[in-house]
């Protein structure tokens, strides 16, 4: 029976319908794999994992890789070199420029809306973008 089920499940996989349009996000996948969900919360996740090969594969891979990952590779806080994060953020913000410019042209913005902190970071870094992008 075990072999029979094995063959049938694999055969069904071959003829399975295309992957679902929506997928579980990393947040739900992590919460499921870590066993943090209550029964009611996990029910739709389990149903999705049965129907969705890619998401099920992700959860399986996380478990598989996790068992291979040595404990010493777990969190090891690093000593930061001064200014590293500032440079990192500048570099990351610089990559925003193209989409920022597009949005500036096409996106509607609430007149009353106050720019948030992230928007300020983007604005400040904009002049550097051209330089970094080259």
């Amino acid at each position, binding site marked *: *029976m075990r*072999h*029979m*089920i094995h*063959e*049938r*499940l*694999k*055969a069904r*996989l*071959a*003829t399975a319908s295309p992957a679902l349009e929506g997928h579980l996000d990393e*947040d739900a996948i992590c*919460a*499921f*794999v*870590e*066993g*943090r969900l*209550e*029964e009611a*919360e*996990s*029910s*739709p996740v*389990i149903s999705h*994992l*049965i129907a969705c090969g890619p998401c*099920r594969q992700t959860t*399986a*891979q*996380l*478990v*598989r*890789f996790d*068992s291979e*990952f040595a404990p010493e*590779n*777990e*969190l*090891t*806080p*690093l*000593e*930061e070199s001064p200014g590293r*994060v*500032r440079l*990192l953020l500048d570099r*990351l*913000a610089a990559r*925003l420029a193209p989409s*920022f410019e597009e*949005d500036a042209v096409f996106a509607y*913005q609430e007149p009353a*809306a106050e*720019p*948030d*902190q*992230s928007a300020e*970071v983007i604005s400040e870094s904009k002049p550097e973008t051209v330089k970094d992008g080259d």
Partner: protein
Amino acid sequence: MCAAELDAIYAVCAESHSDFDLSAADFRDAVIGAINKYLIGSREGSVVPSAHEISRFIGELQDRDLFLALACARGNEQAWWEFDRQYRSFIERWARHLVRGGTDADEVIDSVYVELFGTRISGGVRQSKFRTYTGRGSLRGWLRAVILHTVVDLYRGRKPEIPLEDWSGNDEAREPRGRFAESRGTEEIMLASVVRDRYRSATNAALDQSLAALDDHETLLLLYYHVEGLKLREIARIVEQPRSPIRRWFQRQSKRRGTGPPSRVHESTVMRWLEKVYKKVSDRFHAELADKHGLNAAEIEICRNIVTEDPAQGVRLDRAVAGSDNFNKEEAAKAPG
């Protein structure tokens, strides 16, 4: 009651990291988002969670991780400094573990940081990946999933996916219809082939029905083991957590749900669960073939062999065909293509 609890959690986090510059309102909005996603979103209809459920949910949140993620999402430099200090080495090692190639790993690490920061702006807000983290699981576990998805995207972008029809387990692919008969070229063999198709059809229908009758937890267990190829000890890791839904479901079925401290789930436990599922499928499979398809014991045995047979060997159908009231030769001959 919940608001006070939430304020208390925020106060503790803000005291530890006042330089993160995260407001109580932002923190509260994120927690409400998590409640909507998991506690309310998982319920059918308009069932509202009780104050006790909300309180428990808030208490279970990885609040410090959430606080850090929210501050990072807003681009706070101190928060990024803390995140980079705590997780950079983990991200690098995990990426190199998954990819095992220096250049590719560097590309993955770079992509992860770009995604975490966010390169797209919507409604004037930078869409940082951190905004999708709710604190339901750990930030470390969430990062693992983010890195894995980044690796998958990297390789998917480079080469086309393997077509499903290449999968060797496909019955149809292994034995194209009619080829068996053509190679032998005799009427008798053609007839046997048609009968075999009928048995195969009944077998697959009965097996599918038996599998469909399983509970979702049982189905997922089978899929992890047989389709994803997880080892018993790896499945045991999934259900290791006392709150694992799969673990709790099986424990409830066996009426051993813990009154004492939760025990470890060993490989033997998972094997025992699998054996129970096999038995359930087997019983249902036999009942389906006997009751719905009217097959006798010999025919059911043929059906079992059909699923697992080596196509080169074939199955001896003579005895069953001769003695069957259901799949007799005339009926088989009349069977549509």
